[in-house]
């Protein structure tokens, strides 16, 4: 359903959202929003199957990570359970040249960028702070401070414009991920202002999973989040965040607008955090089981499976293969996580400054002297 244009489906919030695949697995050919934009997808059977494979894989990897945390192998884990469609759809909508700025929960986007899923586990296992080269992977380091990355994304997008890399179909665009809680942050609002003023080639992708740890959406806003965009002077679109097709179609269109020099878009992916905020959280303290149950009926993967089955695009053999392959990846991931070496203590002095610092060097030398003083002693 479009934003208020047509009768709202039973599963849509007031005001509607763009949905191209219903929870029952029915395809909606296209959706036209009140601003006249029509969203649709034109996937081959293979492409539908690959989207399904992505969804199952990222959920399986996520489950493995949750298990690793429970077994004491990770310090903490921020699960994406329930948000697979939002992440896979938007992640697959990115083109090679596009840059993503994640929070700490975008493991599904990371996977869709073709990045080895082991990459963020250093952070969650506590062997590093999550370091990689954003420019190599076109995927920035995880950002834990809520909303801070939206300004980084905006600055990067301004740089794209300054480099003359917008204005055509081969242009570059940026996607900034954040959640419903982040929309209350000053940085996110400043990012909206700046992006509007500088017409930055950026897509703000808000996964509204209904909760900021324990606080429900009502504690962050009194209007639907996508409508905030209007106040900043760019379009806002709400999508069914559990619909991978809507996520893909709307993100792809918004990115193409951005790369063509038409400025920012806010996408609100209306979804639900099926698990805890992180492994340290206990959601039974602040939400009721029936609410979680109602969202189970809108599961992002079940609807794709139903669609593939009904359309005879895939059958049990395929689904079995996908499960097997995902399990294999997960077990491989587990093995490699367990094999991650603890860092040498002295490396805590590394990478403080590009040009180094005599003070850090002196402390490192003292640290080494201190530790050397124990060598040879009985212990």
């Amino acid at each position, binding site marked *: 359903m479009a934003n208020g244009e047509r009768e709202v489906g039973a599963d849509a919030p007031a005001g509607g959202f763009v949905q191209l695949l219903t929870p029952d697995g029915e395809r909606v050919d296209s959706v036209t929003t009140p601003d006249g934009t029509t969203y649709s997808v034109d996937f081959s059977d293979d492409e539908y199957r690959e989207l399904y494979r992505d969804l199952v894989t990222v959920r399986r990897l996520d489950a493995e990570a949750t298990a690793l945390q429970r077994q004491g192998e990770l310090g903490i884990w921020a699960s994406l359970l329930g948000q697979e469609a939002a992440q896979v759809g938007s992640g697959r909508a990115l083109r090679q040249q596009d840059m993503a*700025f994640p929070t700490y929960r975008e493991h599904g986007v990371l996977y869709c960028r073709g990045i080895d899923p082991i990459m963020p586990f250093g952070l969650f296992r506590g062997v*590093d*702070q*999550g*370091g*990689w*080269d*954003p*420019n*190599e992977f076109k995927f*920035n*380091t995880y*950002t834990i*401070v809520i909303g*801070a990355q*939206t*300004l*980084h*994304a*905006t*600055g*990067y*997008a*301004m*740089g*794209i414009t*300054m*480099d003359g890399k917008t204005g055509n179909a081969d242009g570059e665009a940026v996607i900034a991920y954040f959640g419903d809680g982040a929309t209350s942050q*000053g*940085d996110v609002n*400043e*990012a909206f*202002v*700046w992006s509007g*003023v500088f017409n930055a080639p950026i897509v703000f992708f808000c996964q509204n999973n209904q909760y900021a740890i324990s606080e429900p959406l009502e504690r962050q806003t009194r209007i639907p989040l996508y409508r905030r965009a209007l106040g900043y002077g760019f379009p806002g679109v709400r999508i069914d965040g559990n619909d991978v097709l809507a996520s893909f179609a709307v993100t792809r269109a918004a990115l193409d607008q951005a790369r063509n020099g038409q400025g920012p878009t806010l996408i609100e992916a209306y979804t639900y955090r099926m698990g805890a905020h992180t492994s340290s959280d206990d959601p039974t303290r602040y939400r009721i089981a029936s609410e979680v149950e109602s969202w189970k009926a809108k599961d992002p993967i079940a609807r794709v499976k139903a669609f593939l089955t009904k359309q005879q695009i895939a059958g049990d053999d395929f689904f079995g293969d996908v499960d097997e392959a995902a399990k294999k990846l997960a077990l491989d991931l587990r093995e490699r996580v367990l094999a991650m070496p603890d860092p040498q203590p002295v490396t805590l002095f*590394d*990478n*403080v*400054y*590009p*040009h180094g*610092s*005599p*003070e*850090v060097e002196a402390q490192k030398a003292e640290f080494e002297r201190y530790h050397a003083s124990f060598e040879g002693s009985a212990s």
Partner: protein
Amino acid sequence: MAETITLGKGLNHGLRRALEDDPKVVIMGEDVGKLGGVFRITDGLQKDFGEDRVIDTPLAESGIVGTAVGLAIRGYRPVCEIQFDGFVFPAFNQIVAQVAKMFYRSLGNVRLPIVIRIPFGGGIGAVEHHSESPEALFSHTPGLKVVSCANPADAYTMIRQAIRSDDPIVFFEPKRRYWEKGEVDLDAPLEGAFPLHSARVVRPGTDATLLAYGPMVRTCLDAATAAAEDGRNLEVIDLRSLSPLDMPTVYASVKRTGRAVVVHEAPGNLGLGSELAARITEECFYSLEAPVLRVTGYDVPYPAARVEEDYLPDLDRVLDAVDRSFGW
């Protein structure tokens, strides 16, 4: 060719040279374009380098620094102007949680060659938030380097060195000294220039060491001149780099003079003076004739303009501390 120019003009020339030398250098801040900044430090730069390189930003300090991070990831070298010291706090999170930590977090993959310029200090009769000295907050933060210039020649050279450095640098400018003049060789090459993170003995002496930076260097030099009339020969060191501190220069001086007085406008509690006193005590214990003394702002919010002269360290308070050191 050497010219006599103000400290503010020295910064202006330095910024201009940096813009000329590297197309990736961009200046961003509030009113830095047409107006040339409220202190005119960026005067004429937008006219000559365009709106893409000298960017008038929305009025949002976190946005200035946060977008600078993204520009730096993209390969730019942003120079951010924070209009006044007391306005840096909306950007504090981005500076401390992002700018300072990105290189560490990314295992050395992401360099953020960002310079954050902050006019600081009092003595200009301003209203609240316009006269503060927050340098210790940034010097306390690993991952940031912090410097302050005290004369036109250093202003011209240090701002260029800071922009050329890949380290994120908070650059404190002594706003009440913007209009003080000095000789600057505008053609002097950056290569071989006095290193950015080195302290400099700006007045050699034998009897006690005065340690200062930014606006208090002039105050200490005046105090040393006055002390000379009483037969005391004071050495004055312009620290220039607040993080890292150039301690070898400080130790060498204090070991010779046996006395040290640290002077800064910022409140004394947990300020640069505290750190200097601790380190000097550790390294120069047997050379000290007296404890390291501090002459600082008081531990109160920066006061109203009509009483700021009573808050700020001045020549007399510096000399009083020197007297106390000798009387120990």
